[in-house]
């Protein structure tokens, strides 16, 4: 059984411009010790997916309107608020986009590190202190006892991220969600932090969701990858296979624009066309307006999710078993056969 099993998750945002389906039927699983990469352009719903798993999508705008989030078989969407509070930080931890500003400037490191330990494990006094010291030491922070007395502004950027990492694994949790944890860091620190996260994951056999812009990072840290577009997963599967032979034109476009390792350029801008406006999606496939292999039916009907290989899915008419009005069949696909999934 997977540690985390997300099924048909739907999160809607009520905005001035109408209802935005920020997460529109997302399904995936993550096993123990496995890392799932979640990639996609900015605004495609990656953060909203992660926050919905923790039931922390920004209210009152966001509402989870359907689906299941099973943690070790237990549906989190049926939990009470109190129960969720005991799951957050204990069973599922999350590292936010900007670890530098995730520490509260007016509280000591000690207070912030000890807080979840006291809350979730009932530690007090000496036991609490020594556990906090151990935790900081375990993420490679030197003289941890002194650091507990410090305030965030007294620590270096790299140190602060380590503190955030330490808090995330303090339980240790079953699932670790890292939402673009390295975007705001420079390249050398990025590499160090990735190594640390990877090491923590392996040590605790965490199921990890790694959200990123950077396909280079996906190649290095992820086992499987799910590509999001306009609130949906358009392609998912093992990293090597998808990198070798992407099934979806969007994935293909992403891969073609990926920079060499170490290049910090954002690859997103390299794809032609405007990112979709989620409040006014076209009928049919959301990627159709930008797709180079677009067909007539793409503009009319949204493609179903189909299995395109061992553990691989794609949401593209090109992947659906041969259909009459097919114009562009010369595309390099993985395996283009397979029935639509129920």
């Amino acid at each position: 059984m997977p540690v985390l099993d997300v099924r048909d998750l739907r999160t809607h945002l009520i905005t001035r411009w109408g209802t935005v389906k920020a997460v529109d039927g997302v399904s995936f699983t993550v096993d123990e010790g496995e890392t799932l990469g979640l990639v996609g352009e900015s605004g495609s719903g990656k953060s909203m997916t992660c926050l919905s798993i923790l039931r922390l999508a920004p209210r009152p705008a966001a509402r989870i309107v359907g689906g299941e989030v099973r943690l070790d078989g237990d549906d989190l969407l049926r939990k009470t608020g109190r129960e969720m509070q005991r799951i957050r930080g204990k069973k599922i931890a999350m590292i936010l986009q900007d670890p530098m500003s995730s520490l509260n400037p007016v509280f000591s490191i000690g207070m912030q590190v000890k807080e979840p330990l006291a809350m979730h494990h009932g530690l007090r006094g000496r036991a609490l202190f020594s556990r906090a010291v151990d935790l900081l030491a375990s993420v490679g922070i030197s003289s941890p006892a002194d650091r507990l007395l410090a305030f965030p502004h007294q620590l270096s950027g790299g140190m602060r991220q380590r503190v955030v990492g330490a808090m995330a694994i303090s339980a240790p949790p079953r699932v670790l969600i890292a939402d673009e944890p390295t975007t705001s860091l420079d390249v050398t620190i990025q590499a160090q932090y990735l190594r640390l996260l990877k090491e923590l994951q392996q040590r605790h056999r965490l199921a990890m969701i790694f959200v990123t812009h950077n396909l280079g990072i996906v190649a290095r840290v992820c086992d499987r990858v799910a590509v999001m577009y306009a609130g949906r997963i358009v392609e998912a599967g093992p990293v090597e296979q998808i990198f070798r032979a992407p099934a979806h034109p969007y994935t293909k476009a992403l891969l073609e624009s990926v920079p060499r390792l170490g290049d910090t350029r954002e690859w997103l801008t390299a794809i032609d066309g405007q990112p979709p406006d989620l409040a006014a999606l076209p009928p049919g496939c959301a990627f159709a307006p930008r797709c180079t292999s677009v067909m007539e039916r793409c503009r009319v009907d949204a493609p179903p999710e189909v299995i395109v290989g061992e553990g691989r899915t794609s949401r593209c008419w090109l992947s659906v078993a041969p259909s009459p009005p097919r114009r562009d069949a010369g595309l390099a696909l993985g395996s283009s056969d397979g029935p639509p999934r129920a």
Partner: protein
Amino acid sequence: MTRFVLTRLAQSLVALAILSVVVFVLARATGDPLHLILPMSATEEDYANARRYLGLDRSYPEQYVTFVARAVTGDFGTSLRARRPVSELIAARLPNSLKLGAFAMGVSLLLAFPLGVMAAVHKGTVVDRAAQVIAVLGQSLPTFWVAIVLIEVVAGRLQWLPAGGVDGITSYILPGFTLGWFVVAGMMRLLRSGMLEVLDSEYVKLARVKGVVEARVVWLHALKNALIPVVTFAGIYFSILVTTAIVVETVFAWPGLGRLAYEAITSRDFPVIQAVVLTTAAIVAVVNLSVDCVYGFIDPRIRYAR
């Protein structure tokens, strides 16, 4: 931190010195007090005698030096009207003002905190709008009008509370509320906007992600940060309270510094005016200094600076 506080202390002293000059000059620019003191029938000679007796015949610099030298020892001369040492008048009134001020500050904090925090937490809802209306009314309704209505209704018709004077804790409620309500709006708005910003921050999000209960997220993690701008302005609110106290104390017949100031101004009793203004300024300076210390206590970035 120590340097920060010392700098502020020096600034306060300079400000007090400048203020003493301003007060001294203004008190003498508003007209000859002897017209008020002496009877209509007074002769030129009576005026000359009175002037000499009160030291008003000497040059302004001389008068100022004497004034400062005495003021430093707490001697503000004799009231022209009451013919008693000004220090006695101040000593009699000051405690009443401090007590009313503290009570009013308590009222405004008690109103502003829940209102500001709840307005931010429930942004855009009925709660938010109601909180803003309550706060803004306190600021936009004229203080004397609020005071008169309260006296008329609560003290007069309902007979629940005394209409004026100092007589037990119940007599604090009406003037304290009138005075406190006036500054609620400013504090509440600062808190609301501060909270809105902080509630949107990454560290508040992380607190929730860690599983911290929502009440603790709001009232501890977020509020301590949102407090920083409020504390910065606390000194200013206090000054506003002090000024507004003149109206409130007068309407409620409250024997405090505010009413003493009102009486002194209407009778051009400038030794008293000078003393009241300087005493008030000294209190404001002390409050501001304490605020600076509290500020450092809340924000470690200030505490550990240099």
